[in-house]
């Protein structure tokens, strides 16, 4: 159905249309119900319509947890708005619950007065018992605070597909598209994209393609023709900076950033990886783009994947490896080897809940100290952290710049929230991307006039050593993990030399040029600073907006470079009465900053596997501001 047709249809009935600035919708169902796909499609519709948006997929680590159980619930939350938004939203205005488990595990997040749409077909006594409902919540008064729509989605879907010849079981599987159709009707979403998507996805199985399109239309028509939905909603397109936009997830942006780094440096990329949640999508994506002179190597383990990347770097490629926290633990020795041999290497860590196997599909920022210190000896490594899905692209280019200019491994700390979350992305013009080309060594450089090549002669400005590729005549040299003689690079156990080399390696990293931190303080009179790093940018920013809207001043600084820190950070921290630092860990950056700047930072932490909510941070910030007004001393 085209948009025109749908508008005409809608005009035939007197549904009230309410204009909203923003809406948060959450689809929740069994992990086999296709909720991620449904959410993705609804997101694409919002993007195509021109809304700003942010998403939060949330799914179990098990591929198929037992059907209908609480651990098996998978959900996808989308926040879309007519203005620029920063987070996937705290609480869903609308919850679509495909079964009792989905209702039970999500209803607590729905605010009073929120809308709940349930698939009544799944509310059988067996399914209710499975999740511990003693009475049917659709029949008792437990859902009284909400506007509840009872829709027999399975039955309606099967009915709509009767003509297709599909078996009942297969037909019922299209019920997620029914739900999508219904929501698309409620929010006046364009539908062409979804129909085209379904026809392409099932191109090899026309019957399934048709069935899904039929189910999608049936959902739409259900909203249109039944009287149960009195109101539909419109969320106007957002006024974002002009340009061409697309929707992007953090992992996709990371992959594109690596491709771009290869192009901008004019180096082949060796991408060594071992599958691990939630980083595997970076490997999947990059392996599709071998035409960018990218080799992907799925190694036998984490160790081999980083080893191959570093081996290729030695040969003049841009070596990249991607993993999550448990993989970083295994790669640590090779990162240290990269520090010692001073070769370029990008280590992508898409952080997840830890320790150990932890929470594979949930987010956390608790690998900061691992990246910073998780190696033997004094082993400094630069750290860059993207702040949003789209920002992963720029962060990858920045990590490549540092790795190539300074000949060092660099950590790129993404996390599960931005890896899978998506947002509209202003597509960059490739002409504006940084030039990352490097110069390899071409001639002997020994400072003693011997005419030899010394691998550890340093650039006086960057302290980087020369990158001499095998195959270059007269530059034969040996490098390794043993301590190097300053300059000549031969093995040296000399005490003074080790002292000098340890300090040189540290000075090289400390001296990396990084942009100064910028303060966002619209009123210019804030006495409290909200500081953050990585994926907390969205919730911290949204919380600052709320606080400011309530008339309280607050400044915000968000750090992309964690090592080295921006040169002006100490000055900034000293300029505020209070600095509050929310982190999805137990205060790792706070610990580093307290030690470095002797500033009594207020550490606000959460490790629930989910991002901060703007509401909770706004409350916390407000408390800090109001308690520091006119008061001396500490909280």
């Amino acid at each position, binding site marked *: 159905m085209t948009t025109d047709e749908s508008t005409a249809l809608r005009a035939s009935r007197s549904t009230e249309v309410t204009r909203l600035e923003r809406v948060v919708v959450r689809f929740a169902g069994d992990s086999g119900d296709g909720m991620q796909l449904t959410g993705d499609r609804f997101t*694409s519709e919002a*993007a195509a319509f*021109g809304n700003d948006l942010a998403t939060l997929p949330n799914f179990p680590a098990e591929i198929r947890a037992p059907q209908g159980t609480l651990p098996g619930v998978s959900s996808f939350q989308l926040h879309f708005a007519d203005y620029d938004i920063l987070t996937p939203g705290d609480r869903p205005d609308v919850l679509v619950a495909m079964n009792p488990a989905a209702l039970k595990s999500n209803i607590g997040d729905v605010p009073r007065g929120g809308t709940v749409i349930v698939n009544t077909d799944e509310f059988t006594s067996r399914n209710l018992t499975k999740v511990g409902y003693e009475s049917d919540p659709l029949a008792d008064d437990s859902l009284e605070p909400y506007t509840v729509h009872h829709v027999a989605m399975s039955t309606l879907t099967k009915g709509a597909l009767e003509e297709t010849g599909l078996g009942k079981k297969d037909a019922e599987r299209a019920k997620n598209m029914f739900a999508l159709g219904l929501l698309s009707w409620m929010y006046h979403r364009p539908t062409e994209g979804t129909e085209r998507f379904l026809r392409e996805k099932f191109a090899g199985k026309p019957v399934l393609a048709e069935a899904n399109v039929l189910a999608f239309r049936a959902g739409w028509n259900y909203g249109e023709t039944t009287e149960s939905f009195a109101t539909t909603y419109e969320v106007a*397109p957002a*006024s*974002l900076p*002009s*340009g*061409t*936009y*697309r929707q992007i997830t953090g992992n996709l942006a990371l992959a*594109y950033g690596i*491709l771009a780094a290869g192009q901008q440096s004019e180096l*082949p990329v*060796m991408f*060594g990886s071992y599958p691990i949640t939630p980083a595997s999508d970076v490997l999947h994506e990059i392996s599709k*783009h*071998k*035409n*960018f*002179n990218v*080799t992907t*190597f799925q*190694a*036998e383990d984490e*160790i*081999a994947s980083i*080893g*191959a990347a*570093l*081996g*290729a*770097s*030695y*040969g*003049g*490629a841009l*070596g990249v490896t991607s993993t999550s926290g448990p993989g970083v633990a295994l790669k640590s*020795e*090779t990162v240290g*080897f990269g520090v010692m*041999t001073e070769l370029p290497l990008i280590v992508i860590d898409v952080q997840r809940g830890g320790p150990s196997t932890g929470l594979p599909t949930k987010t956390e920022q608790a690998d900061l100290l691992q990246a910073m210190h998780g190696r033997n000896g004094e082993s400094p490594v630069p750290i860059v952290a993207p702040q949003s899905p789209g920002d992963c*692209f720029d962060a990858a280019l920045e990590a490549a710049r540092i790795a190539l200019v300074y000949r060092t491994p660099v950590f790129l700390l993404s996390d599960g929230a931005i890896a899978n979350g998506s947002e509209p992305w202003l*597509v*960059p*013009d490739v002409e504006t991307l940084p030039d990352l080309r490097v110069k390899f060594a071409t001639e002997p450089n020994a400072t003693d006039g011997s005419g030899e090549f010394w691998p550890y002669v340093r650039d006086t400005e960057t302290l980087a050593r020369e990158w001499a590729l*095998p*195959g270059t*005549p*007269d*530059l*034969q*040299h*040996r*490098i*390794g*993990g*043993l301590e190097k003689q300053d300059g000549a690079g*031969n*093995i040296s156990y000399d005490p003074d030399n080790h002292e000098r080399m340890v300090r040189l390696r540290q000075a090289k990293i400390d001296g990396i040029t990084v942009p100064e931190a910028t303060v966002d303080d619209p009123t210019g009179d804030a006495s409290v600073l909200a500081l953050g790093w990585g994926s907390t940018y969205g919730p911290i920013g949204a919380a600052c907006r709320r606080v400011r809207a309530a008339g309280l001043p607050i400044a915000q600084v968000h750090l992309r470079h964690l090592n080295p820190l921006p040169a002006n950070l100490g000055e900034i921290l000293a300029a505020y009465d209070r600095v509050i630092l929310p982190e999805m860990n137990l205060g790792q950056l706070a610990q580093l900053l307290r030690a470095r700047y002797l500033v009594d930072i207020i550490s606000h932490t959460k490790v629930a596997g989910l991002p901060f909510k703007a509401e909770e941070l706004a409350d916390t910030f407000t408390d800090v501001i109001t308690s520091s007004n006119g008061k001396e001393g500490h909280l």
Partner: protein
Amino acid sequence: MTAIDLGLPALGGLDDVPTTEEPGKAKDYKSDQEVRWCPGCGDYIVLNTVQSFLPSLGLKRENIVFVSGIGCSSRFPYYMNTYGMHSIHGRAPAIATGLATSRPDLSVWVVTGDGDALSIGGNHLIHTLRRNVNLTILLFNNRIYGLTKGQYSPTSDQGMVTKSTPMGSVDTPFNPISLALGAEATFVGRALDSDKKGLSEVLGAAAAHRGSALVEIYQNCPIFNDGAFDVLKDSDEAASRLIPLRTGEPVTFGPEGEHAVVRSGFGGLKVAATSEVSTADIVTHDPTIDDPAYAFALSRLDDQTLTHTPTGIFRQVQRPTYDDAAREQVSKARHNKPADLQAVLTGNDTWTVS
């Protein structure tokens, strides 16, 4: 020194490596670093053999790279005036895989020991062999941990008393040749450290092999496991223990050729008295047999006691290499579709805000 002509599709291990009219001499391959192995160490002989042998390949010296792990033998790259990397324990095959895959113009050599390759690096060794990456692995097997001063290794004899096994090792040792064959290795050879000629021959064939070549070198550790291979070097004993493998020739050995290798049981081999078997029963050595069972049976003639020790080339078969295939995919992709970064970044689903 030339590789054995197998009459197979001629894609050699060094085909993409630039050659020179002036490959130099052994001394050109010696670095200025003082060699610091213990006096009498078998590593010295191997180093000298490799340095003497390399000029015969006719390669540009700057296109040769030695990558090692950790252990006594892994100091090897420091003494070679080529490119070299002394890496981390057990990881040399992984690092070399990345290097060899991205640089077909390099002759890549991995130097490792029994602890480095078979213990901490066992995983990388088997997967490198399975992938058949174009590189040559020199496995110095002295059946002991030398650098850490004398603990038992994965090839030490059961019952061996070492610093960490005062009551004797209870571990069953690996047979490195059997292991490599089980890991789908396409080239497996063995030589003694003291046998310059034999080692050079195996090295030549290994270098010419396109794919992973594993060369096990029995190497004496004079400090912690002295004389482990003496029976193979003793003029009285050696001839009746060593089984030299010569392609196309019947496998016989002994001072007078009085021992022969014949088929036995379920695809196995055994040693028999030449006089008691018919000539037709004596196996004729052919390392190119596709079924690895033959080479495996040869490797099982050696039961750790060195009673019967085949040397030479056990297996030498052609199989596509990982690095060739990986590069082929990249080059095909580049040929089929120009890298248009702007197009990828933009994607198919955009909207415009004016």
